[in-house]
């Protein structure tokens, strides 16, 4: 048992730290903060990492990944979060990319992977459907073969950033026979195709991220099918297991909690800084202690992956605890803001309240409600642990 870092790891840490200290600058932050300049700024930020060879830590080297050890990946993500730097859009790099390099054909790899890697092609995810919720496999969007094309009809929901995406990767129904998990195919669809309509979903945080995406007789060339027809569920599932390790967001929560402590040091209540209040300290430490534990829970999962184990259903724990902690930190930030937690600045609008973090606290709290719902709700994660870890039927 050994959690110390090697000299190489420490040198790597310094390099990463230095990179974020210089490259994550006000210009980038400014650009990302407004919806009109978001894609442009995010692409520029992506390319800084791309130029360094760091855009896709989890990709194999042959497709442009950096070939890092799990310790290096951990350090990289830790330093990114510690610097407060935004992570790159996950839909291409973390979601469809691995599906393409694991299950796609050579033509697909050449067509898509380089653009995803360099950040010029944006993706969104078409899994959930209106009415289906956590029961993903109940999807109804139909793809019917017509010559060299599939014709798509149906709708996808929760398509984050569909309004900015060039492509959408979709689970579609190509057969209604057998179990509902069978008969699902994995398709890549150009968002400029005729018959696609993106309807924004207004959410409780007031920012525009989510959409409903409609498909009306959308024609998709068959060469955009990943792997075999009716095997899409398998590819999607393989991806979901991967997705779940990063979701603990330990380093982001550490940074956010440290910010809350800092903010509470400047907020006066009853004549002394809020952070000196024993009851407030108890609330902070409740969270920090869970987070210190979660950091090591994640390291344990990573270490088990590094020695050949798969990130099993235990990683559902990372999702549950990670999101619970995120939400607890968000709630605490609200508390610190006092009355100003209510400030609600329209997206891209000017903050007239004169208070510097009230609106942010509100936004993060409301936006954060979704964390325990998406990517398999925490209830579904508990079902998974009960079944797969505890063996309860």
């Amino acid at each position, binding site marked *: 048992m050994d959690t110390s870092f090697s000299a190489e790891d420490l040198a790597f840490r310094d390099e990463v730290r230095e990179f974020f200290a210089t490259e994550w600058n006000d210009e980038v932050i400014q650009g990302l903060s407004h919806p009109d300049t978001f894609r442009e700024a995010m692409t520029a930020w992506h390319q800084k990492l791309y130029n360094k060879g760091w855009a896709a830590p989890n990709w194999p080297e042959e497709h442009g990944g950096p070939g890092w050890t799990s310790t290096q990946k951990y350090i990289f993500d830790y330093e990114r979060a510690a610097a407060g730097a935004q992570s790159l859009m996950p839909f291409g790099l973390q979601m469809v990319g691995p599906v393409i390099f694991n299950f796609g054909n050579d033509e697909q790899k050449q067509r898509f992977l380089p653009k995803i890697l360099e950040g010029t092609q944006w993706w969104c995810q078409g899994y*959930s459907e209106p009415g289906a*919720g*956590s*029961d993903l496999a*109940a999807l109804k969007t139909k793809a019917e073969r017509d010559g060299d094309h599939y014709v798509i009809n149906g709708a996808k*929901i*929760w398509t984050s950033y569909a309004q900015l995406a060039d492509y959408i990767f979709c689970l579609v129904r190509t057969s209604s026979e057998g179990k509902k998990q069978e008969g699902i195919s994995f398709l890549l669809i150009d968002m400029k195709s005729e018959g696609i309509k993106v309807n924004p*979903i*207004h*959410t*409780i*945080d007031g920012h525009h991220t*989510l959409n409903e995406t409609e498909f009306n007789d959308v024609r998709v060339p068959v060469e955009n099918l990943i792997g075999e027809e009716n095997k899409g569920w398998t590819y999607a599932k393989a991806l979901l297991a991967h997705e779940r390790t990063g979701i603990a967001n330990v380093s982001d929560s550490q940074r956010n909690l440290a910010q809350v402590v800092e903010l509470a040091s400047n*907020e*006066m*209540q*009853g004549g002394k800084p809020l952070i000196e*209040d024993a*009851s*407030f300290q108890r*609330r902070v430490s409740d969270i920090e202690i869970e987070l210190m534990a979660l950091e090591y829970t994640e390291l344990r999962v990573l270490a088990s992956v590094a020695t050949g184990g798969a990130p099993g259903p235990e990683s559902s724990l990372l999702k549950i605890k990670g999101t619970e902690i995120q*939400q607890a930190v968000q*709630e605490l930030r*609200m*508390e610190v803001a*006092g*009355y*100003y*937690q*209510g*400030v*609600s*600045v*329209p997206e891209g609008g000017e*903050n*007239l*309240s*004169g*208070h510097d973090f009230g609106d942010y606290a*509100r936004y993060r*709290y*409301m936006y954060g*409600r*979704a964390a*325990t*719902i*998406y990517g398999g*709700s*925490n*209830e579904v994660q*508990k079902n998974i642990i009960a079944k797969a870890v505890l063996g309860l039927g």
Partner: protein
Amino acid sequence: MNFDFSEEQVMLRDSVARYIQDDYDFDTRNKVVASDEGFSRENWQTFAELGWLSIPFAEENGGFGGSPVDLMLIMEQLGRGLIAEPFIPTVLLFGGLVEAAGSEAQKEALLPAVIGGELQGAFAYLERKTRFDLDAIETTATGSGDSYTLSGEKTVVFNGASADKLVVSALSDGGVSLFLVDASAGGVSRTSYRMMDGQVVANITLDGAAGELLGEAGKALPIIEQVVDNVTLAISAEAVGIMGRLNEVTVEYARTREQFGVAIGTFQALQHRMVDNFMAFEQAKSLLYRAICDRLEGKADARRSLHALKTMVDRSGKHIGAESIQLHGGMGVTEEMSVGHYARRLMMINTIFGNGDYHQQKFSELSYGEKAQEAPAAPRAVDAA
């Protein structure tokens, strides 16, 4: 001992409920909130005509002479309907302070206009550094007698953008004083913005603005606290109304929404969580009743009950709000469903006049601190005052 309501009280409650059902459905409400002022002047006139604006005022001031129970019944319904009109700032805060602190002349000049729905008011008390201590202010008033001028900056003034008249707290004469300030007077400038519950509030800068003393100079704090206590009860009742409605909405959703081929309300783990929400609501309601009875009956324990209530409104409000969203799944984070709107109003209420932590500390000080030892043993329900 009973928890019954009089026939008159039941009628009052039902009239608000009927108004919401007939004229204030969720879509209508959202349109009202989206308007420039964040509420409807037309609705306000209706409220005046229905007599609601007169409820808390004494009969000799032209009011209905309603009790805290009457007010509770209205507020619960306003919560259930998520009513956006400025009942709290204009009627309870502005009107309440004028009634509690004002001279006969001031009351005569202002209260009929409040009750008639012609005057919008606000109470400007918060400043950047106030947090929850009402006397932690820096705005000053200089002058004496009929002539005071005020300087300072007030923030998050509820209804501050629409108010014709303000009551402003300021330091003068060795303490906190209250002043009536004309919102359109020289030296008064306003910046307005929205809060998460959709209401429009204002930061108000006073730069030598003329103020008319309301009540005794330098001795306003006890009066402010008394009015704030009333309003704390009222917003707690609003919160209890919201929690009850949230539970209904969520249970209804769980009964009809299907996942994996069955209604999600059949999943036992979710059932037990809805039961927890139900219990949290019932407990908050019980403390509301307790705090109101203690106040009505002048019990020595009234202050502890109020702190306990606001603490629980915070905890249960957050819990029920968050759980209602969670139990709605993805739909819960959309504006299309009502749960997010209710949850945001609960979050807003939690912080008004002190959040749960603040009130719990006050509760603890009274119960276990030095003050507890000075006071006689904390009386329980069975010990009448």
